[in-house]
């Protein structure tokens, strides 16, 4: 029975206009972002620049301290503090006492008093281009990394969530372009540890995640509302099939149908890597499968489960609004960690480069926990949907689109 229903659900989905709109959106998005995928060739010594080869991965504590303190001095001098709680800039106004405390922290880190800052900034930009160079400040001799971090922790506390002064953000904000050796090291990581295809499939997941964080909810909500619109609910309720089978097969069909075009598209980066014919690379031919299942599937499962749960519960388009809000916040939050390595609990983890394998390796445990969490959440929502559906079949919760309003019991009704 489950297989029969699963097939029927797949066929219904394949016949719906909105599913093909979903496929068209995926293809268009893929084309616009990855249509002209350029596979990196090995860096050559003496070439004009190495901008395509990412940033230095061996950042020193000294780099972090100089850049972080420079950014704090700049913000303090211009009295212009910003945080990025969900990707948008949020101006933070400090009171006199807090400003004084920041001034004291700067003094502890650099030995500069507030009245010396202007002269120091001016002196720095006499020898550096203000358009291209980030202000760096000379630190006090003997300043330890631990002391620096404890001072920055205090700054982060004063500014509130989304500040750039947590250890993670301070490290992420240091982006030093690579020289030839750095470029060669990054390229080695890509070809040896990532099997070349791994890096490009990860980039594929990064881009497709942006649309997969929202699009499946449209198809799902439409499918869920279809029974109501065609007035088939009562007919299905009366059947002997268990609710778990009805909802389970529908859920599985929706997830499979959503993943189908994704899987097909994900093979393209691998084909491009093979066609590039770069010598001496041990290609990972199955990277697309690993990333599809590990990175994108949990996301699709979560979005589909939000769709079926909210729509079954309210019989309205509420799922679209809920998912749109979640997606928007995820996308904006992810904007501050585009280079990968800092995946957190974001529904749409970002890694907008084929490089930075070191960051991926470092953040892998967090990413795995993140994906497992969303898979479990999806299954919990599915179980709740089955529960709601079962209650409806027994005559409860039938509110014709309203969340509240039916106070009669099934017997009274």
């Amino acid at each position, binding site marked *: 029975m489950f297989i029969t229903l699963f097939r029927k659900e797949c066929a219904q989905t394949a016949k719906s*206009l*909105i599913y093909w*709109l979903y496929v068209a*959106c995926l293809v*268009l*998005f893929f084309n*616009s*972002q990855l249509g002209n995928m350029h596979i990196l060739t090995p860096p050559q010594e003496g070439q004009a620049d190495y901008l395509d080869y990412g940033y230095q991965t061996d950042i020193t504590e000294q780099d972090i301290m100089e850049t972080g303190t420079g950014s704090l001095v700049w913000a303090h001098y211009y009295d*212009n503090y*910003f*945080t990025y*709680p*969900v990707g*948008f*800039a*949020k*101006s*933070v*106004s400090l009171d006199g006492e807090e400003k004084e405390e920041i001034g004291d922290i700067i003094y502890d880190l650099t030995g500069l008093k507030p009245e010396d800052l202007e002269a120091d900034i001016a002196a720095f930009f006499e020898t550096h281009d203000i358009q291209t160079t980030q202000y760096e400040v000379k630190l006090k001799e003997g300043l330890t990394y631990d002391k620096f971090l404890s001072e920055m922790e205090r700054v982060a506390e004063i500014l509130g969530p989304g500040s750039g002064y947590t250890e993670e953000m301070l490290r992420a904000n240091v982006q030093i372009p690579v020289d030839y050796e750095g470029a060669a090291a990054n390229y080695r990581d890509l070809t040896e540890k990532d099997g070349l295809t791994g890096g490009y499939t990860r980039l594929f997941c990064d*881009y497709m995640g*942006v*649309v997969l964080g*929202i*699009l499946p909810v*449209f198809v799902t*909500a*439409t499918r869920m*509302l279809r029974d109501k*619109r065609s007035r088939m609910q009562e007919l299905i309720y009366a059947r002997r099939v268990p609710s778990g089978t009805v909802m389970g097969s529908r859920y599985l069909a929706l997830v499979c149908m959503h993943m189908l075009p994704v899987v097909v598209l994900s093979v393209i980066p691998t084909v491009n890597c093979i066609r590039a014919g770069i010598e001496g690379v041990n290609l990972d031919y199955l990277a697309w499968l690993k990333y599809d299942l590990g990175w994108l599937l949990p996301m699709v499962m979560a979005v589909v489960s939000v769709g079926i749960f909210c729509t079954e519960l309210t019989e309205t*388009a509420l799922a*679209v*609004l809920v998912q*749109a809000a979640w997606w928007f*916040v995820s996308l*904006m939050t992810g904007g501050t960690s585009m280079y990968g390595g800092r995946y957190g609990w974001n529904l749409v983890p970002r890694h907008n480069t084929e490089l930075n394998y070191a960051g991926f390796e470092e953040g892998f445990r967090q990413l795995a926990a993140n994906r497992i969490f969303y898979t479990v959440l999806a299954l919990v929502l599915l179980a709740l949907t089955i529960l709601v559906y079962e209650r409806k079949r027994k005559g409860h919760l039938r509110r014709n689109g309203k969340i509240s309003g039916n106070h009669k019991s099934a017997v009274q009704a």
Partner: protein
Amino acid sequence: MEKYLEITKVQFRHNAWQHLLLSVLLLAGSPLVLGISNLDASQSAKVLETYVALVGILLFVPVFLPEQDRDLWDVVKARYTKMTAVYLTRILLSLLFSALLTLIFLLVMRAGDCEMEPVKYYFGTMAEVIAFGGLGVFAYAVSDNLIVGYMIPLGYYVAGISAGYRYMKKLYPFGMLTDYETKYWILGAGIVLMVCGVLVFRRRR
């Protein structure tokens, strides 16, 4: 005139208030997620274009929602008042709400010392609101499906973020500082799509 006032009242009492409430919540909740004070000109434009303009989708798209139910449609179409006039009244109500909400938000930003050229930014944001709304209304009418009505303008929003001005040219939705002429284009497109949406929905039934 009295008839149209009555239509407006009924629309507000039974439908529009929910979408208005959602829009108010979206904007009122903004201080929790983004800054609306001491922003420079580009940050102000970003807030207005990528956040405030979303009210266009919330307020305009559900314009045909009351007639989603076929039975209700049969009752409504038996009346002698033209459905086109009813839809236009509803659209004007959505326009009024979105214009007011955008104005209030812009004034709050001004009071918070955000840098901007008020008239230019207001017109630019409203052009985008109408473009999102028009696209949604048209998609809803063509597909006879509210969900598609939400999906298409959101797709346009994503295309704006990901493809950028380079690919979208005059139809780029976030061109407040890149190319202000885009605002006239999207406004025109939004109005045309909205009118076509009403005509298509009327003919479909």
